[in-house]
């Protein structure tokens, strides 16, 4: 039953949703820029390691192949459901495991050298940050999709009255 009050509140809600959408777009853009920057600086550090140590020191030949021994993943993507409202916001997050050789959690850095140079360590940190940012960006994008869907619904509701 459409009343003036519900129309007013629906309008206000729609305004807020639009503002939220703008905020989310800006945050998403910022997040994407951060991913770009972090990834670029990681790549530069990796290139520096190769330049200092020679081209053959860090190569794909050192990565384990199918025939190598099995090991567990140090980093997993898990979906986490927020307590507040489980329906609308399905978020994902990163779960990291400590290096534990006996249980199969190996340190990937040691494939390349026993004493990795500082620049290679820096590159690893940068790429780890990058994964976190990708997760953040995904969450923002999901939120944005939710907001867009509710805007569509609410517009239909308003148009009907």
């Amino acid at each position, binding site marked *: 039953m459409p009343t003036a009050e519900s129309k007013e509140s629906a309008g206000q809600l729609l305004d807020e949703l639009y*503002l939220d959408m703008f905020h989310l777009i800006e945050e998403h*853009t910022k997040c994407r820029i951060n991913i770009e920057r972090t990834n670029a600086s990681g790549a530069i550090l990796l290139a520096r390691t190769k330049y200092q140590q020679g081209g053959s020191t860090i190569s794909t030949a050192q990565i384990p192949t199918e025939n190598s021994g099995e090991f567990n993943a140090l980093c997993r993507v898990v979906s986490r459901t927020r307590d507040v409202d489980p329906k609308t916001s399905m978020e994902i997050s990163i779960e990291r495991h400590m290096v534990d050789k006996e249980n199969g959690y190996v340190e990937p850095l040691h494939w390349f050298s026993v004493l990795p140079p500082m620049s290679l360590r820096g590159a690893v940190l940068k790429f780890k940050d990058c994964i976190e940012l990708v997760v953040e960006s995904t969450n923002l994008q999901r939120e944005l999709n939710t907001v867009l869907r509710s805007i569509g619904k609410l517009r239909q509701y308003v148009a009907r009255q």
Partner: protein
Amino acid sequence: MLKSTIIDTRIRLRPSKKLLDLLDAQKEHFKELPDNVAQLLKSNGYVVPLGVQIIKANEKQYKRPTIDVVLLEKLTADVIDDPLIAKSDSEATEEDETPEEDQDQRQQPKGPTSFLYLSDLHWLNTFMSELRSKNICNVFLYQIIESSELILPENELKPRNPELEARCQRLREEQQNREYHKMTKNVDAGLKHYPEDTIAYQMKSINKQIIAVAQFIFSVAAGFVFGFLGINLIVGGLPFGFRLLLGVICALVIALAEMYFLAKKLHEYDEVLDAPKRKKPEPPTTSKGQRAKQHAE
């Protein structure tokens, strides 16, 4: 053309004529005005009333509005989430608005101040809700921004640095020239006078290797002589077989040590041979002519 990083992450909204007219109509209710909106109004030929407090855009920090999810679900409970309906709906509105928008765009001056930013939209929202609460006009924010154009942050396209381009071009040409020379060395008589082909050059490079090998042979021989004769001179009266054995042992020890250095030196020499030879940069006019001639030949 390369895509560069986005510098300005703000979203922009190009205001429509409708929005500006509405702002103009309600201008006596302004209490405060963001400076961006004030400039926007001025640049579009509207008059900003005196006595309005102008606030700087970055003075206030706006947070994301909290959405009343319960109310949202209650209102949209009976709306079917059908993308087809939504699509046709939006298409219909778009069709309605396109001619109007085109007109607006022609009227808009293209300047840095002709956009609304997020803080301005926040201000607009509070302003509109004030107007609604005072029952002055019953217009919502979404109704007035519907006709405006939203401009998303985009990557700027940037041409490559001409210096880098020139450098790449030069390196590519050098590489191609080198390959060409290698290919045509046997065919072209004009190119026979390259340093690699003269006897002096080859002798020089062989000399280095010969010296290294001769050093090796001399030191091994000296070690043998020391074991064979020197120890006999010091101690005296050793049997011939033992002297021979001593000589061989001394020579072997020295040969092992020397082998290491020889291998290192020869390896270095190989690397020098593999490395591309760089020509000294020539003045551009002559080099161009020369290059062209070389290819022509």
